[in-house]
């Protein structure tokens, strides 16, 4: 499990005592048995209109394949500064990725969305395999994905 303080460039949160307003959030992504090589995943935040806000996690170590995580690649412009220190191994068929991050309170119930893009070698790319609003009410509720994700949920 990784604990990473996520600063999403919100000037306000920097000005205030940060820790008091951070919350520990766990993201659980379970994959289907899609029968292929290890999947690359990008978990990221967008605003209500779908515009990229920041990277939560990238599973998969070879950056040359990152362009297949299309929505995230477009938003992050594949700038290494966007995902530095937020990468890990790719996830094999049927396994679960669980990450815990410290998120700013201001991001919750404010219209932000969590998205998951997925890609597997020689198989389709899924932009927004999962797209779910980040709300207090939605916490703990699994949602199904469209592609390689069987279910996704976040817990505070």
């Amino acid at each position, binding site marked *: 499990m990784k604990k990473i303080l996520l600063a999403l460039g919100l000037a306000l949160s920097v000005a205030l005592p940060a820790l008091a307003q951070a919350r520990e959030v766990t993201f659980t992504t379970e994959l289907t048995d899609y029968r292929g090589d290890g999947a690359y995943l990008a978990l990221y935040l967008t605003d209500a209109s779908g515009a990229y806000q920041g990277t939560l996690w990238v599973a998969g170590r070879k950056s040359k394949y990152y*362009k297949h995580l299309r929505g995230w690649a477009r938003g992050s412009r594949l700038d290494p500064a966007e995902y530095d220190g937020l990468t890990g191994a790719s996830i094999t068929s049927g396994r679960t990725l669980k990450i815990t991050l410290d998120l700013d309170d201001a991001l919750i119930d404010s219209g932000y969305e969590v998205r998951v893009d997925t890609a597997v070698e020689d198989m389709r*790319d899924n932009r927004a395999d999962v797209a779910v609003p980040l709300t207090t009410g939605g916490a703990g509720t699994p949602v199904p994905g469209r592609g390689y994700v069987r279910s996704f949920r976040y817990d505070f």
Partner: protein
Amino acid sequence: MLRKLHGLPGLIAAVFLVTLAVTGAILALAPALDRAGAVVPPAGEISVARMAGRVVANYPGTEQIVRDLSGQVVVYYSRDGQAGADLVNPVTGERLGAYQPSAFFVWIRDLHRSFLLDTPGRMMAGISAALMLLVCLSGMALLARRSGGWGALMRPLAGTGSKRVHAEIARLAVLGLLLSALTGSFLSAQRFGLIPEVADPGPGFPAEVSGGQPRPVDQLQALSEVDLNDLRELVFPYPDDPRDVYSLTTSGGSGFIDQASGELLQFQPRSTGSVVRQWIMRLHTGEGLWWLGLLLGVAALSVPALSVTGAVIWWQRRRSSLQTRDNVAAAEADAIVLVGSEGGATRGFARALQTGLTRAGFRVHCADMNALADSYPVASLLLVLTSTYGDGDAPASAGRFMERLRDFRAGSALKYAVLGFGDRQFPNFCRFALEVDEALAGKGLSQIQPVELIDRCSAARFSEWGSRLGNAIGVPLALSHDPVPPRTFRLELAERADYGQAVQAPTSILRFRLADAGQGWQSWFFRSGRPRLPAFEAGDLLGILPPQGQEARFYSLASSASDGVFEICVRKQPGGLCSGYLHGLQPGDCVEAFIRRNPGFRPVTGAVPVILIGAGAGIGPLAGFIRKNTARNPMYLYWGGRSEDSDFLYQPELGHYLEDRRLTGLSTAFSRSDEKAYVQDRLRQDQTALRQMIDTGAQVLVCGGRDMAAGVKQVFEEILQPLRLEVEDLRAQGRYLEDVY
């Protein structure tokens, strides 16, 4: 050194290489299978815009369209919140079937890439590919050395058994194997960062888009300019996002397309590094090059056969290496046996000589020729047994002999004899043995007896040499060594046809069949219990073991295994032990026999003429070749006998073959007829025609006695002179073959 470089990596990696090769051969089918299922319109007929329009009409939720190098078009779509993928016909946009990469091929590919062991397995596969490269290169160098130079690589190969099979298969497959090994090594080296990978991040996302009303995909200008066959991938914009764009990848590069204006944005041509890498990938997988894939697959299938024959060769060499218990130190020995051997066959003879000499009371030291000492203080005998390698070179264990001989100090008591081993099919038969003999004489050593040359490991000639040597040094010396103890089977004489009684040349055509072959259904039922017959063809040798444990004698076979009989033609030699024995057989009598392959004596197949020349019983294998010439290739037979009335062997059959054109022309000569002609005379008469045929690539096969073969060779030297060719030139090209007894 070269041999170790070939053998060791081969042995170590054999299991991995066989796995890589078999899985590779299976994967090689994929491009051809994909191509067979793909719809590929001619270039310039269908644009990407048109294709995409038709696909979208059938798949409103299209997210991505991918065209692979085989021409298959896959659409990835979303319907009712579920993702799907279908193969589509790019012309009509209709569904061909669900797209699901075959689980079997995926498994085979993982086995091929990584032995199912992920990163460590990938590393092993990469190392195996590098070893394969080493084995291919060292093998080519070995084959070139063996055939007598790089230019001789494509000539027919001499030799027999595993070595020949190994060389023949390798020669056919080596280019395919080299390509697979080279590209595989490259891809693996790049995977592990040994070769830097050119980063190809692709174009950056456009900062500005027009943001207007999106047009239907078939009305986008940029897409209508791209031919379907150049498409790699088209990714659709996210639904209802006017700021998103199409991403397009073609064979030339990649870029984006504004969904409102239809303009191509930020197009970036593919980098050279990426093009090179993709080509190496294609040359390895055959993707989009289905014919290359199949060729590489067939080449890969040779690897199991090469591994097995290679291991057999290695084992034979190891078994015959020098390991004798009664070896005496060089300084104390009174008889020295030195061995020059490449494949190890000569060592067996050396061991037999050592045993014979030891039994006769000598203290024997046996060693490689390369281990020649500076002097042998107490020795009185120096016996050198050597083969010749390739084009007259020293074999492996004698490469440094000549150099060491310069520093050799021979005692005055030391006498020597040289025994050469070779194969008369090679142009420089026993050349190295002759050179060694001269060099030893040049050192002032006295010769016990003249150099003797043994053709194809003849056990009989070896024991004759032994008894002459025994006479010369005054001790009885009984040498017996048969290189490979043959597995014999019992043959029953089925029928015989006798000729030549009236002209004092009794010759019989003998037809044998397997003695234990049962009749009727029992023989089918109990088939597995019977001894299995080896495969044989006309031109191979039938070894007959005469009674009372005499040495085997060899007769050329006139029939093939498919004829179901063993047919030989035997002239009764005055005082001949085995021929007398055979001539005494009556139908129903049995003999012990075995097959010795003789693949070096075969007619070529194809349109070039084959000139068959024989005398007396030498017609046997030639008649067999004609009988098998059902393709009606041009074949001419020159044959000499004594009298048309008495010993015209195969007369009715030959007439029949002329009629059905299996035999193109027949010319006979009879020495006891009125004209007293020999086969050489007939050749001289036809010399213009023969010269013309040789000029068009004809092959000559001679079978008969030694004197007749020498006479025929002389005539051919005359015939070839105007062409500025010699018999040796033809022999080196496999176009002048002799089977002489």
